[in-house]
């Protein structure tokens, strides 16, 4: 399989502050990788470097075999905050991605309907962001990240403001999209269960300086379902992650 993302010796300093140090990570095409770690350990910074939004202070980043020099075409990002444009309706906010990329085609409108339905936003198409709950705003941002069918999807805690039910539902949906389309997905999350449920591999990070502690494989067959979370493989993976985080004094 070809390598989608290759990070070699990535470091990032903000002034004298070391946000990231010695990050080595390879992600193959079509892989689902989750990143966990305590607040401030550099998860978002790492995601920004992969996205080409932030230049690393040292090291090399490659996406799809090419050095990252800026955002590339096949990328979709759901940021940690929804960043919706307040003057646009739900529909227009999602369509923004298509407008900017000059991708307005009839089949895209169909995809828009499908995504809106899938994320449970039907009936809210004409509402503006201030009329939506935080969780709904996040779902709009997710639709916007998916609408142009990117080959690399980067998500920064996209489900943080969702209730457990909706969250599980969207997790299942993301899994389905991923299995159908073969996207490469990098997901930053605070939830170990979410990471283990979705990812092939879970990258555990620690802070000061931000670095990768270890990478945990989750060897559970797909499609996965929440009813077999008690599966020994799931249990093992989550225990490993929890132990790694405990060892770093992350959880009490």
């Amino acid at each position, binding site marked *: 399989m070809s390598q989608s993302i290759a990070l070699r010796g990535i470091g990032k300093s903000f002034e004298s502050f070391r946000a990231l140090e010695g990050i080595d990570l390879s992600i193959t095409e079509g892989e689902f990788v989750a990143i966990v770690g305590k607040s401030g350990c550099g998860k978002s910074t790492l995601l920004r470097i992969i996205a080409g939004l932030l230049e690393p202070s040292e090291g090399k980043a490659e996406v799809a075999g090419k050095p990252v020099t800026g955002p590339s*075409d096949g990328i979709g*990002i759901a940021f940690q905050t929804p*960043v919706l444009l307040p003057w646009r309706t739900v529909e227009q906010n999602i369509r923004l991605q298509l407008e900017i990329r000059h991708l307005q085609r009839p089949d895209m409108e169909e995809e828009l309907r499908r995504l809106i339905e899938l994320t449970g936003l039907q009936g809210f198409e004409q509402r503006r962001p201030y009329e939506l709950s935080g969780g709904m705003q996040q779902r709009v941002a997710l639709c916007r990240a998916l609408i142009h069918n990117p080959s690399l999807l980067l998500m920064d805690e996209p489900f943080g403001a969702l209730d457990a039910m909706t969250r599980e539902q969207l997790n299942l949906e993301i899994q389905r999209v991923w299995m159908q389309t073969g996207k490469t997905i990098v997901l930053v999350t605070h939830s170990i269960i979410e990471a283990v449920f979705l990812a092939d591999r879970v990258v555990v990070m620690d802070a000061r300086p931000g670095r990768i502690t270890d990478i945990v494989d989750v060897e559970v067959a797909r499609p996965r379902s929440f009813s077999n979370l008690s599966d020994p493989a799931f249990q093992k993976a989550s225990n490993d992650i929890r132990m790694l985080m405990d060892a770093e004094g992350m959880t009490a």
Partner: protein
Amino acid sequence: MKDLLKDTLYPAAMLMLLVGAWLAGVYLLHLPPYLLPSPHDVFDRLTGDFGYLMWHSGVTTFISLAGFFLSIVIGIPLAIALVSSKILDRTLMPWLVLSQTFPKVALAPLITVWFGLGMGPKIGVTFLVAFFPVLISSVVGLRSIESEMIELADSMKASRLQKFWKFRLPMALPSIFAGIKVSVAFSIVGAVIAEWVGATQGLGYLLLQANASLDTSLLFAVLICLTVIGVVLYYSVEWLEKMMIPWHATVRLKDRL
């Protein structure tokens, strides 16, 4: 409907209070008419000289509006230029700031000497008084876009133009409107100042005439005309704001708390 009532009730009560104080000043303190004319005299003046006052009001409104539009037409593009070019910003900004600390009232006579007594120089003075709020608030608005919004635009590979039209400019509109509202009020002050120097018409000119002949009832009538013009222009801008940025919190949440 209830909001409308509330919106008009409180200012109306305030007006009653003022008129009450005015009446008290005239009839209880017996202030002489050349200091404080009675409301009755002023009302007579307003109705009696209605056409005359309207004509001069028209002149002042025209100068105010022309100066105000010029402020917008020059202020906003200048702000865009300053925001997009560091060199321009460094070269011009200190001078623009300096020009504002300079008393523009003092400039009016000079402008008259240089450019004459026509409408043009008066509109110029009005512009000088009114354009700075638009300029500064536009600069602030265009600069204050959140970094995540810019990252979003970057992640979509938005061009410079797209970034400007689809992100920066709409994002800056609330701030721009805040400046425009200050500017519209300033433009009336600017027009009056301009008419103080070498004018033969306009409310500023009337103000001087009334003052010279101690015609306080005319003075009051002129002040009332100025106030009406100011209020109408201000609320027109506010209405426009409501139409253009209904999504913004300052528009939506006006009636909360």
